[in-house]
């Protein structure tokens, strides 16, 4: 069975177990615990969408939980609107709030995002206090209890909470399998690399934030009816809400459907039972347990139980084949070097400075259709800066870049990618929890399409680099060569017309260099133009049709490899003017009889 099928079966299994427990358990107190397990698992899954998949740690997700609770209860108390409608309104308000909060907040990176999210629930809390909503009781409607979510049978709340959990699981599963899900995981791993693969990071984060706000709001609404009965700012916007969310996710494992469910199934009963047995004598026991759980999990299994156990199993059954490189390749017949193709990329007088340091000065060259162009130069020559300017990470101060006749200077990286310029990085960033195939799919989604189409494109790209047999393994066990090949496949899966390869040969063995070079040539045969940065010139001389030499940010030379490496200016750049002088005279001396 496919991994996809298995995960739907898993969701069905969780729902079945949930249903069975709801039916079997008859004791009121146990039913309450069951409700809490379902609700916190759902809340954890909601948080997991933005913080687990997309890696944007939110310390303020209780803002949406509280909005859901307050909107629902206030609508019922003030306007007599049924909570069934009220909680939908609550979810809608939460989504709007997420969009409003996200717009400025996602401009902040890393720790700043997390710190900023702290402030929102605190503000809501203070405002609710100020507006006089310190305590809002759910109005009792005796004649139509079901319409106002006031079940006398606690089992009904179990089922309601289970329904929310099921819906959140389905939502999460749909996200996992969609273009959005792949994009989010790419953003988490490396936002820059994701942008270079055509991912619109800002929009993806906003979408994830909005999607995660809705189930959080529904959880808040159900929680206030099933458990609270009186909504207070502390109970729904308070620290304990986010703490329980974090605990179920981090203990279970983030970035997966199963983590929050596992975490809730373990942590919620433990803390509830402790609270009810010793809570009277030891107020705060819940907090101690949650705090200790966070500390222990961070110290001993920071990836969470699911990944810890899952990984242990995976490594036990890992195929032995991962040690070897890709299958040997018959050397493709080499066509004559193309140097006469039409110009596809024009780089005109590009200059870029950082803090007064001139990284690129007036760099001009052309890339022709179907060629392999090598860019070489000593340390600090500006090679990677040049790539960063070409693919939109950096805006040049002066100069212009034209791609197939149209200016692309200043276009954002994901748009450059979608126009057909792919790139790889010096250090391969892979997504450790995705298989090789799924890693490549992130690139395959660059031009949209269905998951099925992306899978097909990804498989095709893997076949092209000879990595098809590794499609189902996770990349952690791959060799450097295989990782590079996977990255090349990921880049090819974006269907580029031009690829920018940043040191694809560095650190490879002699055999590895051969294989990688063959794959690069094969890509060219398939009609992809290639620009390579390298500092191992020997390898580059063998595969490049032409070389451009950069030195201290300027174009020093351009031409056929043989000519360029004999060019005195190039020898001077690499070995110094005095080496040139010395050996020029040495040569001259040799010539004398």
């Amino acid at each position: 069975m496919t991994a996809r099928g298995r995960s739907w079966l898993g969701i069905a299994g969780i729902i079945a177990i949930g249903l069975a427990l709801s039916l079997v358990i008859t004791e009121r107190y146990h039913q309450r615990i069951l409700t809490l397990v379902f609700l916190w698992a759902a809340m954890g899954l909601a948080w997991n969408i933005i913080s687990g998949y997309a890696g944007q740690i939110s310390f303020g997700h209780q803002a949406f939980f509280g909005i859901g609770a307050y909107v629902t209860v206030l609508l019922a108390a003030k306007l007599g609107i049924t909570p069934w409608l009220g909680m939908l309104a609550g979810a809608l308000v939460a989504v709007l709030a997420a969009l409003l909060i996200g717009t400025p907040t996602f401009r902040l990176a890393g720790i700043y995002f997390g710190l900023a999210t702290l402030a929102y629930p605190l503000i809501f809390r203070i405002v609710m206090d100020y507006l006089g909503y310190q305590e809002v009781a759910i109005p009792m409607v005796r004649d139509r209890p079901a319409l106002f979510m006031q079940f006398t049978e606690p089992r009904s709340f179990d089922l309601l909470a289970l329904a929310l959990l099921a819906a959140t699981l389905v939502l999460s599963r749909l996200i996992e399998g969609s273009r959005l899900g792949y994009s989010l995981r790419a953003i988490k791993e490396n936002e820059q690399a994701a942008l270079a693969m055509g991912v619109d990071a800002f929009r993806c984060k906003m979408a994830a934030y909005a999607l995660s706000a809705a189930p959080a709001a529904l959880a808040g609404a159900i929680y206030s009816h099933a458990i609270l009965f009186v909504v207070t700012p502390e109970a729904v916007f308070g620290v304990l809400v986010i703490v329980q969310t974090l605990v179920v996710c981090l203990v279970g494992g983030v970035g997966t459907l199963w983590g929050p469910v596992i975490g809730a199934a373990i942590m919620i009963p433990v803390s509830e039972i402790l609270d009810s047995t010793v809570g009277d004598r030891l107020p705060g026991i819940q907090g101690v347990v949650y705090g200790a759980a966070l500390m222990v999990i961070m110290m001993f299994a920071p990836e969470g139980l699911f990944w810890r156990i899952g990984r242990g199993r995976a490594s036990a059954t890992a195929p032995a084949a991962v040690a070897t490189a890709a299958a040997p390749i018959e050397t493709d017949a080499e066509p004559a070097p193309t140097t006469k193709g039409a110009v596809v990329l024009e780089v005109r007088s590009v200059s870029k400075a950082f803090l007064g340091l001139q990284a690129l000065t007036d760099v001009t060259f052309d890339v022709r259709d179907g060629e392999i162009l090598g860019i070489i130069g000593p340390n600090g020559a500006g090679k990677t800066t040049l790539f960063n300017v070409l693919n939109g990470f950096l805006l040049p101060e002066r100069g212009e870049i034209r791609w197939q006749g149209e200016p692309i200077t200043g276009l954002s990286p994901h748009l450059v990618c979608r126009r057909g310029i792919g790139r790889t990085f010096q250090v391969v960033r892979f997504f450790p929890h995705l298989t090789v195939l799924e890693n490549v799919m992130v690139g395959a989604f660059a031009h949209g399409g269905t998951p099925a189409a992306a899978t097909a494109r990804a498989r095709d790209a893997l076949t092209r680099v000879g990595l098809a047999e590794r499609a189902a393994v996770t990349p952690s066990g791959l060799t450097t060569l295989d990782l590079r090949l996977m990255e090349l496949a990921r880049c090819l899966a974006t269907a580029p017309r031009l690829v920018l390869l940043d040191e694809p040969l560095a650190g490879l063995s002699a055999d590895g260099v051969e294989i990688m070079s063959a794959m690069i040539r094969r890509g060219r045969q398939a009609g992809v133009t290639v620009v390579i940065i390298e500092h191992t010139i020997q390898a580059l001389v063998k595969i490049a049709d032409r070389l451009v030499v950069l030195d201290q940010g300027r174009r020093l030379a351009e031409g056929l490899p043989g000519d360029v490496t004999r060019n005195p200016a190039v020898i001077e750049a690499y070995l110094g003017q005095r080496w040139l002088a010395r050996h020029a005279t040495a040569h001259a001396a040799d010539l004398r009889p």
Partner: protein
Amino acid sequence: MVASELAQYVVTGLLVGGVYALMSIGLALIFGVMRVVNFAQGDFMMLGMYLTYYYAIALNVDPLLGALFALPPFFVLGLLVHRAFLARVTGGGDPNREMDAQLILTLGLSLVITNATTMILSPMPRGINAPYASKAFALGPLLLNQARSYSFLMALLLAAAVYVLLTRTDLGRALRAAADDPEAAGYQGINVRAMHGIAFGIGIALVAAAGGLLATYHPIEPNVAVNFIVLMFVAVVLGGLGSIPGAFVGGLVIGLVQSLTLLLLPLQLQNVGVFVTFLIVLYVRPQGLFGRRARAV
């Protein structure tokens, strides 16, 4: 509005801000050297308040002095906490992951401390009856609460001591070097790991002392930490994450903002002014007023 009324608000804000500044310096030192955002900082402050309280109750030590006596035990506690917990958390070489892991570890620590204190000492608020708590100095038309004034002066004194330590001693220079460039610090023979422990110890000791000063005019209860940790975060971000002079100024600014908010908004909304300032600073200048360049993605 009368000018003297405005001046009164400014002075009150600055006096409170001095103690905030001292707390924030501790947090900034820990972040600067270790790159750890310490969520448990408020809890160590709360423990410092209790220690000062028990010094006063059991040994009849004046809380201003008690705050000073809180320094050595909390320095040692900081060393131990670092050794036992923080030093064990690594993100597998990825600094971002490591930062998240340590952040969550300190969040867990904070929960344990708050709730264990509730468990052991009961949630009942306590207070120290300092003789000067209800007296005030008159400075022209201005009234300066004596407890706040003394606390402010002590906070300045301690902040100055930190400044001298950091700039005039080999240990201080080594701490700053470890913050600037841990790898190059290693090349000079500086044990960077030991510096982390010492920075954590000093940071905890400072915030505990600040707690002791606060205890002269603020009720002592286990969950006092929550309110103050956010104020410290705001002060530290305002000053630029990791900048110690920045945190000092940030603390003063927070005191001022809190006080001046009262001119516009009712008491309940006092902290809204602080949080709004925080968000504005984050959006407009995330590197803070004194910050180094913001961390890249």
